[in-house]
């Protein structure tokens, strides 16, 4: 039992003084936290952009311009259309292709373009949902990982006391403080992940509803045209 003269309890000494399993837990949690924040920012930017794209596309779609022109404008761009635009592109491409073969029934044409739109919609939704399971996992599991590190550290701190007849707080306190750093990191990783997951899940839900209603409306328009 050595007690340092200067009561050195800085965060670095706490981490450096922890036992190996606790340090391992801290490392895992730090990496997890970095990745989860990275994904949070990626999702934040991509979802924001998907919402803005959907807004722009709906505006240009409902202004009542020529659908052929809109389609050409989308495919001419260097960038592959995303979100609502890609659904429109898939549906309209299928419709135009069937339209050229004039012998097809209207219902078949509609069915084909609907299927194409459904496929594009699924791909878009898959992109929107990306990384959300990771955030959910981090949110639910990292507190437990941190808790594991803490329990381990506290176990060690108390095991060291077994040789001492009379325990003082100063003999346990450093060990417990070290161990609690693991919980702190776990919570720091978990709380933003949970908040972000809930926010992004609701954003994705709202976007998917928007896409689906667009698909229905666009099908109606195509049916009227044919």
């Amino acid at each position, binding site marked *: *039992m*050595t007690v340092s*003269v200067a009561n050195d309890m800085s965060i670095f000494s706490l981490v450096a003084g922890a036992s190996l399993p606790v340090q391992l837990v801290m490392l895992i949690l730090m990496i997890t936290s970095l990745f989860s924040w990275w994904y*949070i920012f990626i999702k934040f930017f*991509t979802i924001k952009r998907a919402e803005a794209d959907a807004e722009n596309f709906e505006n240009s779609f409902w202004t009542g311009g020529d659908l052929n022109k809109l389609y050409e404008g989308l495919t001419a761009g260097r960038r592959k259309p995303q979100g609502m635009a890609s659904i429109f592109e898939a549906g309209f491409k299928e419709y135009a292709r069937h339209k050229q073969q004039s012998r097809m029934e209207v219902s078949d044409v509609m069915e084909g373009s609907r299927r194409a739109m459904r496929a594009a919609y699924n791909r878009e939704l898959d992109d929107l949902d990306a990384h959300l399971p990771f955030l959910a996992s981090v949110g639910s599991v990292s507190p437990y990982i941190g808790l594991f590190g803490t329990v381990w550290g506290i176990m060690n701190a108390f095991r060291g006391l077994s040789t001492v*007849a*009379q325990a003082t707080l100063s003999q346990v306190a450093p060990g417990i403080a070290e161990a609690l750093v693991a919980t702190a990191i776990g919570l720091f990783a978990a709380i933003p992940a949970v908040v972000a997951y809930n926010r992004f899940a609701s954003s994705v839900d709202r976007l998917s509803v928007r896409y689906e209603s667009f698909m229905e409306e666009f099908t109606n328009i195509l049916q009227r045209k044919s």
Partner: protein
Amino acid sequence: MIRAYEKEVSWKAGGLAIAVHLALLGGLLISFNWKAAHPVLNVTEVELWDSIPNSTVTPPPPLPVVEPEVKVEPPPKPIEKVPEPPKPVEREDPKVDIALERKKELEQKQKVIEQKKVEEKLKKDKALEQKKQLAALQEETRKDEMRDSDKQISDKKAKDALKKLQQEALADEKTAGDQQALSAKAATNAGVLDEFRNKIQAKIRGNVNKTLCGEGNPELKFDIGLLPTGEISGSPKLVKSSGNEACDEAVERAIIASQPLPLPSDPSLFSQFRNLKLKFRPND
């Protein structure tokens, strides 16, 4: 890991993620430093000053006064004891000749005389001791007023007086009966107390880096709390600084490095060691 369409924001997101973590680390560092930089010593110094003269100077005087009183009791006992021995002798062999009985009576008388002598001697001793104690007390109070390094000398004198008393008590125990065991134990306890006090001082002194204390003969005082295992509870408190911070710290480190401190094996004596006030002269 990431989708193709996410690549354009991945660097931005990565930078932001690292920024968030750096911000957290910075916050932690600031808050932890703020907590660690508590100078406690300066605050407690004043408080502890006035507790010292009371506890170091006043306790010794009452001790010697009590002990002589205990010593007066024993002499009468042996007198009661003396008539007893002949009885078993009479019972066991009734055919003892008169010469032997007379011899016994003579011996008895001699014993009584001896006892009286011892008593007288004890009374004299007592008077002498009280005189000595009075002198010591007066000296102590006088020295206390001066309140300097002289205090140690007066302490020493008081301790010497105590030791003499203890030795006399020990000698008395041999002549008188086992009634004195109690006072004798107290006397040996006091001896053990002194012995372990010296041991603790010696152990700590051995660990002091004397080069840090420079020239001269600085004196410092430390208050330490001890656990029954010999470990220090909390941290040693500097009561009187040597004026040299490096020296103070050297002694403090030495105290901590000396754990566990030697303690008497008798747990009943531990209460005397719970709070120790130690004086150091590293250059002695």
